[in-house]
């Protein structure tokens, strides 16, 4: 009898201890999650710093003090102590380009991370899924027939969508390893669209269409205007906001279609929404900057190493890191040599070896 009583009391004490433990866990957990949040904010601070420094870089150097003064004068009344040409260069040339570099980098990285989640495939990215090649084809077609910014973007989007849908359907029919299936179908679809682009180049007018297609395919942020910004910003926002809202649904989908469904996730709707949004932001990027490879594959993987695979943190981290990465690369692109190096070339040169490095490292975050 006493023994039973003792047991009861012990049980109760243990039980209450356990519950305090849970409260405690909640607190320590918060600290751990705060570490990830802190990391993301740290990256954001670095991005802001890099942003301001970038404004000063270029053929016509502008000092940090002047930059802050010029930017500040838009909000407060500041006695101008700078050249008016500095202000012109800053607002007309550098600011649009730098903002666009950030937007494109952020978009490509977020699109890549999202593709990886819903395809449950670490190799999914705008380049490998053929979205970029598809979008290039649509854009090249539009350059030839309409030469209008809106048409180029629409062409890039529609053609990008077609290529993703195609890759997805083909990869579902492949037998065996699903990662391999997706990559192989991506290569297949990419090469089809690349062949299409080659043909378009062949028949394009060599005087104006051909150079503009060629240059555009190499990817470049040169000659960015405020109009480009206005044009790209809206579709990027329309695409990125739903992706952020669906972060936990994407988490569930990484477990697989059926498991996600038994968790109450409407997998079809989520998958279609995510593909539409990710393709929209990719196409918006491609339409203003041309084809910029590797960002969508490398940055999400880098971020997985930093904050783990939970999309709650992975998407914001990818957004900020993607922006930071492309901003830095664009700085090299416009400042390293006296002539501009197309940014698509640089992202490949930097991105590919870096991906090798990530692949061969063992540590893992979760």
């Amino acid at each position: 009898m006493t023994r039973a009583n003792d047991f009861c009391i012990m049980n109760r004490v243990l039980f209450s201890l356990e519950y305090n433990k849970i409260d405690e866990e909640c607190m320590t957990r918060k600290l751990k999650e705060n570490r990830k949040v802190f990391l993301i904010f740290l990256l954001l601070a670095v991005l802001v710093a890099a942003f301001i420094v970038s404004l000063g870089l270029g053929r016509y150097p502008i000092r940090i003090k002047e930059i802050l003064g010029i930017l500040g004068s838009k909000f407060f009344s500041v006695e101008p102590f700078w050249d008016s040409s500095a202000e012109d260069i800053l607002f007309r040339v550098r600011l649009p380009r730098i903002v666009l570099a950030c937007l494109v980098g952020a978009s490509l990285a977020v699109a890549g991370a999202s593709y990886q989640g819903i395809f449950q495939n670490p190799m999914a990215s705008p380049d490998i899924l053929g979205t970029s090649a598809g979008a290039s084809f649509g854009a090249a077609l539009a350059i030839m027939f309409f030469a209008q910014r809106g048409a180029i973007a629409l062409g890039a989007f529609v053609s990008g969508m077609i290529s993703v849908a195609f890759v997805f359907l083909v990869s579902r029919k492949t037998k065996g390893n699903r990662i391999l299936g997706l990559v192989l179908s991506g290569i297949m679809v990419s090469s089809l669209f690349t062949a299409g682009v080659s043909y378009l180049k062949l028949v394009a007018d060599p005087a104006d269409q051909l150079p503009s297609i060629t240059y555009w395919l190499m990817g470049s942020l040169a000659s960015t205007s405020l109009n480009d910004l206005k044009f790209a910003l809206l579709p990027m926002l329309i695409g990125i906001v739903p992706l952020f809202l669906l972060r936990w649904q994407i988490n569930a989908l990484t477990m697989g279609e059926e498991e996600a469904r038994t968790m109450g996730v409407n997998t079809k709707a989520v998958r279609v929404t995510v593909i539409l949004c990710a393709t929209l932001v990719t196409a918006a990027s491609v339409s203003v900057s041309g084809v910029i490879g590797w960002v969508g594959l490398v940055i999400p993987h880098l971020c997985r190493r930093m904050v783990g695979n939970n999309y709650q943190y992975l998407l914001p981290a990818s957004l900020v890191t993607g922006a930071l990465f492309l901003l830095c690369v664009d700085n090299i692109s416009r400042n390293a040599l006296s002539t501009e190096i197309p940014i698509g070339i640089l992202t490949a040169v930097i991105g590919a070896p870096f991906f090798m490095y990530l692949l061969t490292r063992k540590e893992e975050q979760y």
Partner: protein
Amino acid sequence: MSLEVMELSYRYGERKILENISFELQFGQFTCLIGPNGVGKTTLMRCILRLLTDYEGKICIDGKSIKDISAKQLAQQMAYIPQLHTPMFNSSVLDMTIMGTIASLPNFSSPKEKQRKIALQALEKMGLLHLKDRGFMQTSGGERQLTLIARALAQQAKILIMDEATANLDFGNRFRVLEQVKQLTKEGYCIFMTTHHIDEVLLFADKVVALQEGKKIADGRPREVVDEALMRRLYQAEVEMVGAHDGQTQICIPKRGEK
């Protein structure tokens, strides 16, 4: 409260996979589904989980057809515990468990403090609290299976459907997982598990349903239903039913070298 399967038939093209199957799952009971490979166990389970809907007959929870319930509502009543697998992206045991709580969250929102607490309580119930920050793939097979159960508990569903949840576990882990599962039935959970291990059925189950070629051939308490004849019919195996020293537990062992 119960889950009822009524005259369920399923055909795949011309082939009949399930034929006119009826049974009932009670809350507070551990029901096992047995039968040889390829007999339609998985199909039956997928029908119950509403992953397949083109069946004939009816599946009801408390008298309401599962086809009339929204996906979210269904997920709040019924959770799926899959066979052990390797997710593409590793996540922490806690993140894995929190995933279960999205069943009760509105679309477009993320788990908050309250959901984290639910997940931690589920982990605690499975005795995994100390592993919460460990990577899912860095835990043992038994711990991983228990994490998947914890995820189902975090879903706060009362019906748990387990697909050969003990298939890839070693001897010790298998029984630790089953003890936990048995504990859950005492708290009122309704548990339905497919298995190939007859000793699990005899030791733990309150009820067993046996399938043979798409038809139900037995349904009842394991000690009354599982015998030499059933084993012969189901698996073409000659077995001997042996009693343990306690005089209650029975186990079946295969006979060797006899036809």
